[in-house]
């Protein structure tokens, strides 16, 4: 019997009440994260990545938001548990880190005390013990001379160091799942590499599952085991890292890949923009920007997920029965190896 996944999200739907009507930010999203693995959610900004992950931990304010569906962590549904239970899960099982660590820190307290506070919020530990544990955590995340830096304030840390501190704070409860929303987007590549390495080491050490939100496919290629491609609140494609990078099936995934240097027929961006989330199109959400769209793409709901191979699924009519998927496949992207100049011709 294979155990159940660490996190199992099903049919997640998050809407917001706005002046312009109901805004559908996340619409029937599902994915899983296994213990010890890294799942990346990718997509343009505004596609619902952040709302999806913040719905899982109920960080989304309700109202104006409404969250539906299930999100089971170790089998317990986070979306239907009481606030008390949720608080305990947030402290002990799930941790969240964000793009801008400074916004998540309190500027008036020393970095060390913020960690101590986080520790004591969930565990009954005396001050000196909490302090020792905080120093240990700071040291573990690579803050040099941790005990001396304990009393320093957030502004005395660089951007990369602040993100390290946030990671230390996240580790306080020995979480099973770490949710990281664009954790390296604001950092220099050199520091980004350090932080990614740190997360990787910690994952090995603590066996955590990581759910990473990012728009950077370079980062995804570096860390992902599996990938969820989101567009306008829907999942377009799901698969292992090699499925998505070497056999991208969905026209939207392919368009993202074509924005990369040395990938297929390189393009400059994806023409058009995300649909208005208060006025979403019928059919496939990507249809208004899809070069392959046919009449059927614009009626009914988002096409059902079709399983191509184990764990590789796509939502596009061309993979359904009666259609020829060769029409949307892009062989120039499937060419193995990196810089091949295959397929640089016009259709």
């Amino acid at each position: 019997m294979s155990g159940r996944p660490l996190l199992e999200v099903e049919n997640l739907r998050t809407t917001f009440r706005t002046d312009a009507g109901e805004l559908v930010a996340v619409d029937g999203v599902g994915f899983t994260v296994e213990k010890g693995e890294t799942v990346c959610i990718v997509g343009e900004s505004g596609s619902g990545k952040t709302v999806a992950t913040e719905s899982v931990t109920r960080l989304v304010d309700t109202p104006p938001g409404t969250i539906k569906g299930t999100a089971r962590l170790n089998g317990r549904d986070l979306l239907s548990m009481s606030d008390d239970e949720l608080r305990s899960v947030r402290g002990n099982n799930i941790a969240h880190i964000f793009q801008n660590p400074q916004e998540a820190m309190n500027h008036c307290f020393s970095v060390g005390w913020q960690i101590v506070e986080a520790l004591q919020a969930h565990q009954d530990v005396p001050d000196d013990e909490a302090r020792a544990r905080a120093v240990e955590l700071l040291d573990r995340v690579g803050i040099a001379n941790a005990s001396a830096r304990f009393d320093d304030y957030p502004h005395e840390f660089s951007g990369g160091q602040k993100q390290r501190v946030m990671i230390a704070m996240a580790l306080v409860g020995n979480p099973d799942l770490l949710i990281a929303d664009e954790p390296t987007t604001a950092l220099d590549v050199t520091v980004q590499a350090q932080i990614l390495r740190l997360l990787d080491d910690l994952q090995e050490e603590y066996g955590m599952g990581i759910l990473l939100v990012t728009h950077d496919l370079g980062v995804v290629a570096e860390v992902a085991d599996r990938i969820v491609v989101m567009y306008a609140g829907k999942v377009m494609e799901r698969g292992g890292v090699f499925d998505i990078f070497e056999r991208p099936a969905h026209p939207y995934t392919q368009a993202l890949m074509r924005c990369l240097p040395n990938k297929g027929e390189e393009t400059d961006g994806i023409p058009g923009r995300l649909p208005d989330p208060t006025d979403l199109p019928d059919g496939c959400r990507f249809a208004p920007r899809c070069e392959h769209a046919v009449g059927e793409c614009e009626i009914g709901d988002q096409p059902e997920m079709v399983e191509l191979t184990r764990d590789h699924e796509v939502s596009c009519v061309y993979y359904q029965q009666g259609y020829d998927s060769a029409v949307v496949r892009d062989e120039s992207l499937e060419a193995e190896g990196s810089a091949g100049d295959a397929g640089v011709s016009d259709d």
Partner: protein
Amino acid sequence: MTEQPLLSVRTLKKHYPIRQGILSRQVGAAKAVDGISFDIYRGETVGLVGESGCGKSTAATSIVRLEDPTDGEVVFNGGGREDKERNSDGTHPNDVTKFDKQELKAFRRDVQMVFQDPSSSFDPRMSVGSSVAEMLLVHGMTDKHRRRAIVEDLLERVGLSAEDYDRYPHEFSGGQKQRIALARALVLNPELLVADEPVSALDVSVQAEILSLISDLQAEFGLSLLLISHDMSVIRKVCDRVAVMYLGEIVEIGDTEAVFTNPQHPYTEALLSSIPTPDPRTRAEGIELTGTVPDPVNPPSGCRFHTRCHRVVQPEGLDVEQSVWRGLIDLRYRVKGGQIDVETLRENALAAESGDGDGVSDEAVTAEIRTEFDLPDRLSDPEADRALSEALDKLVDGDIEDAAELLDSTFSTPCEETTPDYTDHGDGHQSACIRHSDEIASAELAADDD
């Protein structure tokens, strides 16, 4: 080629005084930009790249004189100032740093800037069209209808529509606002555009669109462009030449392709290799650059990069594995800075031993320090190992000063003694690393031979 550059930056410096006390006495200076030189020719795009805090933005604001530089020259040969000779006293009539008020006003028409955050650069109460048109008004165009016609035309050229004239900033996305910022920068027909991280705040799919718009506009308007970015892929996409900055200095400059495919400075090499490649089959192969850019108030001596450089040169007579050498220098600086926390190390060692509770031996702690700095149990060079062991013993004994002194004298690098000159690699490709100087290069070759 004797073509005159549009812009010549020469040994430009910008130091910010650090003041202290009630008398605000100056106690030092942050050397944000410390003697950079480069040229921009007409129609050319030059990139300035480096980590945050290395002085890129200060360079930009000093060049356009949003701030007054501390020293150096910025010669601008545009705006009808072509072919001017130097004055008899050696100064240049086109030196922006010496422009008077009137010259500056003209200069501010010919040189425009675009910033990172398009949201903060517009007045929220003003329609975007009026924001753009205001530039024309300030520079003397009184005809309202003509202003509107020009701006509407420009909005279309940056991919928006004439109707957008009457809309307000909040009605636009980040990418659209950056288009409007470009329209505003171009409305006065400048010769040079300085763009500071113009796409960093935008989503990747939008980034690509804005970058190709910038390239198109540049061709269309015959613009020269100085593009500042911490993102190497952005630089590679649009720049003809690139200057790599580290801690206030340019460490490498050259044609973009040459610098990217054949980097000569270790810093450039490290930056390039930190870019995650969008290929899941080549993971974590990069050079890992430890630490961050040091404080520009006290930049490291000699080559400023030596505190982080993976190729930092070993002193004559020493020959250990390069990664071990890097670890030794890191250790040395951490000890010197009083940044080794023997207590935490003792605890780590205790946790690792997980034996009896009554403390750990000093040997276990020194072993822990070696592990922390990726040093082997024994250095391949016996003499060096003796010095290291002795220093570590002193350190664990709490004798930090002596430990630091011993490490200092044993593990010093030529890179901290010599300020590297530029070496020419052909076609204007230059880098400042002592490994390219003749002595070091031949010594290294000799070392590689054994």
